[in-house]
C-alpha cells in the first residue's frame, strides 16, 4: 500500500509529510508529480501537502487545481478512497470543488504561525477515529489565507452531516464557525489548515498529529482486508 503525496510547483511541506509517514508511521509514501495523469498502483490514500503552489499568486490553490493529476485525485475521491489536504492542500481541494467552502485571507491580514488548540469535533471519520470526541489537540498553523468561509446553508449542512472535523478553540483567523477542518459529505475527503505533520514528534513540541495518521492508516488497512 502506498501513500501518494502530490507535489505541485511550490509545494513545500511535501518532505515533511514524507518523513512522518516513512520514519514515524512506518508506511510507504510516494511522491506523485502534478504532471502525472494517474496515481501509482496500490495507492491507498492521497495526501495534498502544504506550501505555496504557484506562489499562491492569484488565490491559494486556484492554479494548482487545474494540474493534470487532479482528475485522477478526483476520481480516487469519487471512488470513496481517502484524500487529505493540509493547508495549501486544503485550499487546493476547496478550489477543486472536492470540499465545500473557500479560504480567505486571515482576518488580521497577516500570516500566522503558532500552535493552536483544536477541538476534535468529529472523532468518527476515517482520519480522526483515534481521537476522542471533544478532545483538545495541539497542532500548529502556518498560513496567510486560512479564514474558512461558507454560506449559511452550507454551514447548516456541514453541521447536520457532521462534516466539521476540527474547530479552533481561539479562532486565529476569522474562520466561519471556528472551522479548522472539514470533510466532504461522504467523509472520505478531509481538508484542514493546521499541520498534523508538524505535531508528530515530541522533539518538535508535540505528537498529537500521529493519531491522525494512525487513524488514516488503520482505516485503509481495514478497508484492504
Amino acid at each position, binding site marked *: 500500500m502506498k501513500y501518494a503525496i502530490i507535489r505541485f510547483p*511550490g509545494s513545500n511541506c511535501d518532505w515533511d509529510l514524507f518523513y512522518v509517514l516513512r520514519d514515524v508511521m512506518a508506511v510507504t509514501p510516494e511522491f506523485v508529480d502534478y504532471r502525472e495523469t494517474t496515481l501509482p498502483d496500490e495507492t491507498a490514500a492521497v495526501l495534498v501537502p502544504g506550501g505555496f503552489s504557484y506562489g499562491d499568486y492569484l488565490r491559494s490553490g486556484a492554479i494548482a487545481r487545474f494540474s493534470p493529476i487532479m482528475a485522477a485525485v478526483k476520481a480516487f475521491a469519487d471512488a470513496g478512497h481517502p484524500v487529505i489536504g493540509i493547508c495549501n492542500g486544503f485550499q487546493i481541494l476547496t478550489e477543486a470543488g472536492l470540499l465545500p467552502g473557500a479560504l480567505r485571507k486571515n482576518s488580521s491580514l497577516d500570516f500566522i*504561525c503558532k500552535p493552536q488548540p483544536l477541538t476534535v469535533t468529529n472523532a468518527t471519520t476515517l482520519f480522526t477515529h483515534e481521537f476522542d470526541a471533544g478532545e483538545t489537540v495541539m497542532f500548529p498553523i502556518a498560513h496567510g489565507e486560512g479564514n474558512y468561509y461558507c454560506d449559511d446553508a452550507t454551514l447548516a449542512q456541514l453541521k447536520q452531516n457532521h462534516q466539521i472535523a476540527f474547530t479552533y478553540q481561539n479562532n486565529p483567523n476569522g474562520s466561519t464557525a471556528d472551522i479548522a477542518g472539514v470533510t466532504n459529505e461522504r467523509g472520505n475527503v478531509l481538508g484542514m489548515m493546521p499541520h498534523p505533520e508538524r505535531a508528530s514528534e515530541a522533539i518538535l513540541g508535540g505528537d498529537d498529529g500521529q493519531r491522525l495518521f494512525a487513524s488514516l492508516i488503520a482505516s485503509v488497512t481495514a478497508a484492504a482486508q
Partner: protein
Amino acid sequence: MMTELSPAEIKAQGLYLQWGLSEDEFQQVEKILGRLPNFTETGLFAAMWSEHCAYKNSKPLLKQFKTTSDRILQGPGEGAGVLDIGDGQAVVFKAESHNHPTAVEPYQGAATGVGGIVRDIFSMGARPVAMLDSLHFGELDDAATKYLVDQTIAGIGDYGNCMGIPTVGGETTFDAIFKNNTIMNAMCVGILNVDDQQKGAAAGDGNSIYYVGAKTGRDGIQGAIFASAEFSDEQESQRSAVQVGDPFAEKQLMEACLELIHDHADILVGIQDMGAAGLVSSSAEMGAKAGYGMQLDLDLVPQRESGMIPYELMLSESQERMLLCVKKGHEQEVEALFAKYESEAVKIGHVTAETQYQLFHKGQQVADVPVHALVDEAPVYTQPSRQPERLKQVTEQFEPEIENMNDTFIELLEQPTIASKHAIYERYDSQVQTNTVVAPGADSAVIRLRGTNKGLAMTTDANPRYMYLDPYKGGQIALSEAARNIVASGAQPLGITDCLNFGSPEDPEVYYELQQATKGMAEACDTFGTPVISGNVSLYNEFNKQPIYPTPMVGMVGLIESMDRLTTIDFKHTGDLIYVIGTTKDDFNGSEIQKMQNETVSGQLFDFDLQVEKQHQDLVSDLIDQHLVASAHDLAEGGLAVGLAESSFAGDLGVAVTVDLPQSWLFAETQSRFIVSVTPDNQAAFEALAGDQAQLIGTVDDDRFAIHTNGQSIDMSLADAKHSWKEALAWQLN
C-alpha cells in the same frame, strides 16, 4: 531611456563621478585600458569598484578577522562560507544587508534581501534550512515607522514562507537613530553534503555560460552604487527602480539548481548567484576566480523589457537569476532540467583562455577589458581616522531614578526592544521542514540535523547602543553575546558571519568606529575560536550626514554534538534553585534603562573582560555536559530582572529571589552573566563545579514573580508581568 555618451563626452562631463568613480579611479581605468573607457565599460568599472562589490574601504579592516579553523571548507570569498560538521555534512551560512532598498520600499526591499541571501546559500550546493533576520528601526511613535515595520516583516515572511525555509530567529531593536536608515540584515543557513560543495568559477576554454532564472528588466540598476551612497532629503526622489521579488520563481530555480548540483555534478563547472551588480559581477567574478576570460552575447540575455542597452543589461539587479558554467557539449541536459522546473536556462556565452572580459551586443563589441582589472584591481583605501569627541569625555555612570520598582520593571518590560517579539516572528513560518526544535522566543534557535543526534544552534546579535559608546568593547560584546546565546542552548560555537552596518567611511569618525569595532570583534573571534566565514559590509548608512550608530551584526552558528545537551531558557519546576553566574555591578551606561529614562544613551561604556566571559561560558558548557542545569539563559538587555522574567514567562513559572544588591542593579547590564536553574538533587554537584562563580539567589515559584533587594522589591503576579511583556509590542505596532 538612457543615451550612451561617447568616451570623450564621459570624460568631459565627468559622468563617472555620478556613478561613484572618483577622478583618480577613472584615471586608473584609463591607464589599465590604455584608452578611454566607453559608456558600458565605465559602467562596469563603476559597479565593480563600488564599495559594495570591491570592499575598497573595508578590506584592510576585514583582514583582522580570523578565517581559519580545522572545520573550514570554505572561508570568505564565495557565495557563503562552509564549515564541516561531521558525518559527511557541512553547514553553510552568510548574512547580507538590504538596508537601502528596505528604507525605500520596505516590503520589496526586505523580500528581495531574503531572496538574495538564499541564492548565496544554494549556489554553494546547500539546501537552505533556516533564516534569521536582524532589524533595527526608528521609534514606534509615528505611523510611517509602524508601516515600515509592518511591511518589512511582511516582506521577509512572504518570501521565506513561500520558499519553505523556516525563519527561526533574529532580533529587532528600536531607536530614533534608525528612523531614516532602517537596518535589515538577513542570514541564511544551509546544509550541504560535503561532496556537493560548489564554487563560483568559470574555467575551461569553450565551456558554456548559462543564464538561468528570471528575465532581466531595468530594476535595481545601479543598486550596488546606490548602496554605496548616503541618503538625504533631496535625494528622496532620485531612486532607481524598485526590485520586486518572486519567491515562487526562486523556489523553482532553487530546486532546479540543487538537482543539477546533486545529480549532474560532472557537467557543472561553477555556479554563482546574480546579486549586487547583477550580470557583470557574477560573470566577471566567476572568470577571474578561475583565471579565465569570457565572451558574452547580450542579445541572448532573456529580457523583460525592450530596448535595454548593454549598460542596463549588465547592471540590472533583477532578482531570481543565477549564472552557471557548464561543460561544453552538455547544453541540452541543462536546458531540459530547467525546463522541468519551468525555469529558463539560456546559453549566453562561453569561457575563453585569454583573460579578457568581452561583451557583444547587436553584432558590436561593447566591452573589452581585462577581467582581473574589474575584479581584483579596485583600489583599496585606508581612510583617515579620528576618535569621536564623545568617546574622549570622562563621565559618571548613569544612575536610574526609581520611585516604584514594580512600575519601573513593567515600564522596562514594555520597551519594544525588550518586549516579546511574537507579533513579529509569528508572521514567519518557523516550522516548515519539521526540524525546528527551539523556535523563536529563546536565546538561540535550534534545528535538529535529521538522521543524526545532532543539532545546530543559531543567533544574530548586535547592540548599537554599546557600539555607540565604545565601538571596540562593543565589538567584543556583540560576539560574546552571540556566543553566550549559543552556549546557553547547549551548543559549541562553530563560526560567524557578519554584516558591518556603518555610516560613511569617508567620515574619519565613522572610520574610527569601523576600525575599533572590527578590532574588538576580531579579538573576540580568537577568544571563542570562531572564524569569520562570510559576511557583508553596508556603509553609507547616513541621513542628512547623520550616521547610524555603528551596528555590526554577528550571526553565529553552533553545533550541538548530542541532542541530550539541548538546554532551553524556560524554568522547569517549582522549587528548582536559581543561580546567577557572574557578578553584577552598577553598569548602566548604554543600558536599556538609561535609554528608557533619558531617551538616549551616553557616557562611557562599562568594563568588559573577554577572559571572564570565556570562563563563564566554559563553566556553563561544563555544567550542561554534566546535565546539572534544568535551564540556562544569558543576561542581556534589561539585566537580571528581565532575564529572570524571560525564563519565568517561557516556563510559566514565577520566582522567589533575594539578592544582596541595590534595587536599581536589577537592571544593570553587566556582561558575562547567565541565570540557570538547578533541581535540588543536583545542588551539591552543581555547587562543587561552579564554585564561587555562581550564587544561589532563590527558587522557582508558582505564580508570583518576586525579587527582593536591599531596597524595594519587585513583587507581582506572574500573569500581570507576562501580559505587559507579551502584548506591549503588538499594541505599539498597531
